[in-house]
């Protein structure tokens, strides 16, 4: 149960078919919000809607955010469904680990486009609605927006860029009463993590390494990160803007 009441509020969550995005969409919906779910494929979004039980406060906004017109398309579908927008959650991301030597143009572009360009153009497309609602944007960055690891150059670059983007949007939109914040999760037990584990060639070792990665000694549950995202989007955070908020089990705080 969420301790926040989002009744009458409308949210758009990108990358909501699974993982953290799905957890955020579910938490917002449980807290009373109407939620437009974006993901890359209509089928993925429909499956997520079905898992949430459907109903009048859930709508699909499928769009491929790797495409230049994708973010505006997602926002337009959310607007068509609910006629307003209070909360934009830029959650969709690509994270494929790769050493510098094999990071080619396609890999670089995919990360920069989905993880950095799409949040900007989603925010831009949502601005008329957010100005009307004096709403809020939550960008899901990463602890890798605050520091780096090896074999993830495109993702680390994009997430650092997203934090700088968050600060600039926050400053520019503050006079309009629009708050813009970034949440920086550590490693979460999501499908994305499972993809990375699978791609590593030794999933068991991959997961084992993460047992000691955070000082707290475990992976994050997407639901606990989602709960924090709701707090940031809620009036409880009414004086918070331009912040990069780590939810990382102490990962960026120091070395254990």
């Amino acid at each position, binding site marked *: 149960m969420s301790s926040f009441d989002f009744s009458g509020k409308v949210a758009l969550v990108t990358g909501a078919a699974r993982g953290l995005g799905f957890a955020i969409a579910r938490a917002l919906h449980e807290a009373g919000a109407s939620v437009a779910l974006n993901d890359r494929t209509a089928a993925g979004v429909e499956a997520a809607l079905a898992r949430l039980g459907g109903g009048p406060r859930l709508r699909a906004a499928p769009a491929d955010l790797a495409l230049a017109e994708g973010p505006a398309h997602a926002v337009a579908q959310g607007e068509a469904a609910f006629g307003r927008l209070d909360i934009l959650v830029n959650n969709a991301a690509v994270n494929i680990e790769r050493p510098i030597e094999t990071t080619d143009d396609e890999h670089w572009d995919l990360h920069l486009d989905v993880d950095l360009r799409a949040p900007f153009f989603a925010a831009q497309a949502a601005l008329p609605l957010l100005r009307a609602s004096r709403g809020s944007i939550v960008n899901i960055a990463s602890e890798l927006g605050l520091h780096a690891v090896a074999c993830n150059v495109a993702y680390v670059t994009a997430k*650092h860029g997203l934090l700088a983007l968050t600060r*600039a949007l926050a400053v*520019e939109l503050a006079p309009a009463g629009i708050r813009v914040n970034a949440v920086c999760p550590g490693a979460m037990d999501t499908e994305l993590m499972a993809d990375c584990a699978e791609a590593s060639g030794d999933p068991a070792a991959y997961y084992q390494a993460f047992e000691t990665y955070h000082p707290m000694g475990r992976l994050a549950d997407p639901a606990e990160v989602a709960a924090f995202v709701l707090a940031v989007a809620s009036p409880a955070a009414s004086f918070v803007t331009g912040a990069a908020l780590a939810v990382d089990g102490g990962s960026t705080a120091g070395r254990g």
Partner: protein
Amino acid sequence: MQDFRGKRVLVTGSARGIGLAAARLFLERGATLLLHGPTADALAPALAELAPAQGLAADLADRGQCRRLAFEAGELDVLVNAAGIYEERPIEAVDAAYWEKTLAVNLTAPWILSASLLPGLRRRKGVIVNIASDAALLGYPGCSVYGASKGGLVGLTRALAVELAPTVRAICICPGPVDTEMMRASIARSPDPAAARQQWADNTLLGRVAAPREIAEAIVFAASPAASFATGSVWTLDGGVTAGKRG
């Protein structure tokens, strides 16, 4: 500790501004210097001044030209990514072309040059110095895209540092306001240039903008053995802008 004799140094964006100031210091300290500018014409004055430096023209918005530049530069000890573009735009006025060009020059070009030049940098235990901005660390109205590109450059520097250690060092320098053609153009575009000029100075604790040479000194230090324990570093040289506001 700042003797660059026998060291091959490429400074992008060295036709003017911070890049030119850094190029002057590298040459003074004995480097084999490679200058870069957007066109041969733009580069001509710097080339004339800084003989016997070699000049390489390339439009860094074009990936093919970035790769050609890397090829022509050959093996390097020091790569300084100083080329950058800056133009304020409100969020609503940003279009795809502005986004792509800003990201291409300020972020993707440093990446392509770093990656393309990596074999030589590894062999020579080289250094990559990226010039970002205080806008990587602080938000400014009209600077969302520029800020995103420079914030990304901080991340790129850290990612390079982590993955290339201990062989190649990577350092990011974040200048505040510097008296360059880039800043003067921004001032000239503003509705009240005198006020804009004052605003740049007033943002700093020191109450003035930097001379390019003040940033160049840090670039040369970063590239030198005197900074041998510095990697992944993010150095603000901003007159105190990021430290706080003037009382």
